[in-house]
């Protein structure tokens, strides 16, 4: 067995860019906290949510953060479970990022509750038929196992357990993402959310969003280390993200084609493909989230290594697009599915109702919701930036000198 001589240290010199980022993230987190306080104090009537669109933008952020957290573990998994040494210098970053993103996601989820002050009840009173209850264990378990995983990497005395703990965390994150997908997969009253394919679809979305944010963070850390990502790493990330995107596209196509095939789901499917959410679906999810990054990555993969070295910009753009497109996809799934009228009386037309049974529901997210969602993202990144400074997560091998 070869001895690992890679040295790690906390983020070195404090650049002004790092300090500015910290300040912005802190202010945004505080603003998010204020928005959450207002929502809790005044009630959800100040949001765009209603009794028809009951889960709004905070849920989109929370679900996106949770999926991204699970996917951000890709770097560590590939290094310690699949033995790809190229990702080893980034394994610690990957685990720390996964944990902090999940903390942010859970924070948003809790702050959007009608009674966030009753968190203790949610943590102590369980209904084990509820997928939500399972997820409480899956999420807290992920954070616990993530900390153990990171500890095995940080402490050389327990280094030998890294691959075994890594394998356990890998399985755990698959189950976790399945659990998150199942929340939106077994709602019998909403035909758009009554599809078991949601679980694998969410796993595919998770690896796309996670790889994308990991690539962005790796590039940022390399920059803070006054270097750039090595060309081989850029190419490896490009290939990984490319195949993750194709997997996502595959599951998305199967999902929508199967909906078109089943008569019961055709009306809802036509709404997604051609209704008010069509622009978001086609231009947000398909074009921005899949086609554009695929084209950018294909171009990057075709370049020779020295050229790729200078073209991290392509990876940056592809990752950013994939991340945004992923969030749009979550928006279409979570919000779009709630705006479709629920079919209570098949074969009949609703001519009058005081509760919007006849038509599509409207939803416009309020500034408070944007605040809570963005606050959660910023809090995650703030935690990550601080952990980066406190723990030896950065490897010298993680960046190459600028030519």
């Amino acid at each position: 067995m070869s001895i690992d001589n890679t040295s790690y240290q906390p983020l070195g010199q404090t650049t002004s860019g790092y300090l500015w980022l910290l300040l912005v993230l802190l202010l945004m987190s505080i603003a998010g906290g204020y928005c959450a306080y207002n929502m809790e104090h005044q009630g959800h009537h100040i949001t765009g949510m209603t009794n028809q669109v009951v889960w709004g933008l905070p849920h989109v952020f929370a679900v996106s953060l949770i999926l991204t957290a699970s996917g951000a573990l890709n770097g560590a998994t590939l290094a310690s479970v699949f033995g790809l040494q190229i990702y080893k210098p980034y394994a610690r970053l990957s685990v720390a990022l996964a944990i902090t993103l999940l903390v942010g996601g859970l924070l948003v989820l809790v702050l959007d509750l009608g009674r966030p002050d009753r968190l203790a009840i949610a943590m102590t009173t369980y209904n084990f038929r509820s997928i939500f209850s399972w997820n409480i264990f899956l999420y807290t378990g992920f954070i616990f196992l993530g900390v153990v995983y990171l500890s095995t990497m940080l402490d050389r005395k327990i280094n030998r357990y890294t691959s075994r703990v890594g394998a356990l965390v890998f399985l755990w994150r698959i189950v976790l993402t399945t659990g998150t997908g199942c929340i939106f997969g077994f709602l019998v009253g909403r035909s758009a959310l009554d599809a078991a394919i949601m679980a694998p679809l969410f796993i595919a979305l998770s690896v796309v969003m996670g790889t994308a944010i990991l690539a962005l963070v790796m590039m940022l850390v390399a920059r803070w280390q006054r270097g750039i990502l090595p060309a081989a790493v850029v190419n490896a990330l490009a290939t990984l993200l490319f195949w993750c995107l194709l997997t996502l596209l595959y599951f998305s196509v199967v999902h929508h084609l199967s909906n078109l095939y089943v008569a019961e789901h055709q009306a809802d499917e036509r709404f997604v493909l051609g209704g008010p959410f069509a622009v978001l679906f086609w231009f947000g999810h398909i074009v921005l989230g899949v086609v554009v990054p695929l084209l950018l990555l294909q171009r990057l993969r075709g370049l020779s290594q020295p050229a790729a070295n200078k073209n991290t910009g392509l990876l940056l753009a592809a990752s950013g697009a994939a991340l945004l497109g992923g969030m749009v996809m979550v928006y279409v799934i979570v919000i779009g599915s709630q705006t479709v009228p629920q079919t209570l009386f098949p074969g009949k037309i609703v001519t009058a109702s005081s509760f919007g049974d006849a038509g599509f529901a409207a939803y416009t997210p309020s500034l408070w919701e944007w605040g809570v969602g963005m606050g959660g993202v910023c809090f995650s990144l703030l935690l990550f930036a601080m952990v980066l400074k406190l723990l030896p997560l950065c490897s010298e091998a993680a960046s190459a000198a600028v030519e």
Partner: protein
Amino acid sequence: MQKNNSSSPQTDKSLLARRRFLRNLGLLGATAVSSFTLLEVKAREQKANTTGAVTAEKRWGLLIDTSKCSSGCDACVRGCNEEHGIENEGNDATRAQWIRKIDLKDKLTGSESSVPVMCQHCDSAPCVDVCPTGASFKRADGIVLVNKHTCIGCRYCMMACPYKARSFIHETLTNQKPAAPRGKGTVESCTLCVHRVDRSEDLQPACAVACTDEAHSAILFGDLNDPQSKLATKMKEIGASQVRADLQLNTGVRYHGL
């Protein structure tokens, strides 16, 4: 090395006596607590037997005869709102609606009907399944309720309800009625007027009373489990179906003429 034992036999005796005293005190306490608990359980059992506690012998439900329900009438909605202190006005999308009237037209025949829709008190209630804290629960007699003390306002039950029968309270409420402890940030729905039913089986839910007062008598309340009940005999006579019967939720609210 010799051990330095400074305690005298007198001290040992007093220590032993203290231990014995504490042990006896503990035993006495445990006996008292367990006896009290046993007495309490016994008393509760006796009380339950004498007051007719909730059992699965009965299954409360409603029969709605749509042929008697008229399009312009919302007496059941008003009756429900008055009984539970629910506002009649405000934003339709955010205010609580335990019952709503829906007017329907058949796509093929063009025939029109009007139906009140409320919590269907499902036997296999999706809202009960998904609730993470168990705040959404079904009583032994089939009434589906929300425990307002443990509801965290996650709204998963609203996502799961096929009938859109649940309301989330978006604003601060004042002057709530004692029988309907409603509050901001929690979810609520039709309770089948459980406070009336528990007081006396002859007390009908407010919607049924209001409908009868309006001389429509389209809503009939009763025990689905008792074949001799007025509800069961009427259902047998005129026939009844469930809303979204395909979901196989075995609803407690049945409709005639859908």
